[in-house]
C-alpha cells in the first residue's frame, strides 16, 4: 500500500527566506509524486509533479521539489518565500501496481505561514 508522510503540521518562515515543506513516501513500485496547495475555502491547486528524469522538479509560482530515492523524500522548496504563499500544502503519491490504482494518496498536509 502506498503512503505519504508530512512530518510537520505547521511551518513558519519569514518573508524573503527560503522555505522547505517536507514529504516522505512509501510505495511498492515506482513513485509518482505530486504537490498541491490549498487556500482557504478553495480547491486543491496543482504545483508540480515528479514522474521520472531530473530529480529537481520546477513548478508553479517559483516552487520546486527534490526527489531523493535513497531517502524516499520529495521535499517542496522555494528560495524566497512570499506572504501570499501562506496556505495548506499537500504531498501526494500514486504508484502503478499490477492493478489500475490511479487515485492519489495524500499526506496529512502542512500549514505554511509566511510572516511579513
Amino acid at each position, binding site marked *: 500500500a502506498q503512503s505519504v508522510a508530512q512530518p510537520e503540521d505547521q511551518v513558519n518562515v519569514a518573508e524573503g527566506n527560503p522555505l522547505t515543506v517536507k514529504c516522505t513516501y512509501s510505495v511498492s513500485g515506482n513513485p*509518482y509524486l*505530486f504537490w*498541491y496547495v490549498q487556500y482557504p*475555502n*478553495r*480547491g*486543491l*491547486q*496543482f504545483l508540480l*509533479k515528479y*514522474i521520472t528524469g531530473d530529480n529537481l522538479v520546477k513548478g508553479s509560482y517559483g516552487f520546486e521539489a527534490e526527489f531523493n530515492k535513497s531517502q524516499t523524500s520529495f521535499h517542496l522548496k522555494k528560495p524566497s518565500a512570499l506572504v501570499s504563499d501562506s496556505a495548506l500544502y*499537500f504531498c501526494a503519491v*500514486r*504508484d*502503478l501496481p499490477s492493478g*489500475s*490504482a*490511479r*487515485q*492519489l*494518496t*495524500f*499526506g*496529512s*498536509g502542512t500549514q505554511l505561514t509566511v510572516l511579513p
Partner: protein
Amino acid sequence: AAGVIQSPRHLIKEKRETATLKCYPIPRHDTVYWYQQGPGQDPQFLISFYEKMQSDKGSIPDRFSAQQFSDYHSELNMSSLELGDSALYFCASSSGLAGGDATDTQYFGPGTRLTVL
C-alpha cells in the same frame, strides 16, 4: 483555461436526506475522481471513472453511488445522509491514456461543501 466545475458549491441537508453532487471535468478529460475531505483532514479517495466506467473504488460508503455520463460529467449520489458525511467533496479530472496511465495529473475543482444537520 477551463477548470473543473462543481455544483452546488454549498449544500445543507438534514439527516437521512439525499444529496446529488455534480462535476463537470475539464474539456477532453476522460477520467473523473471523487474525494472527500473532512474538517482538518487530508482528502480521501472515494471513486473514479474512466470513459464512463468505474475504474477504482476507495472508501466510498454503500450509501453513496456515482456515475459518469456520456458527456463525461459525473454525479455523486448520497443517500441516508449522516452527520459524519459533512465534508468538502472534491472532484478531479485528468486526461488518462487507455489502460490507466498513472502519470496524468489530476486537476481539482473548487469543491462542494456539504453540511448535514
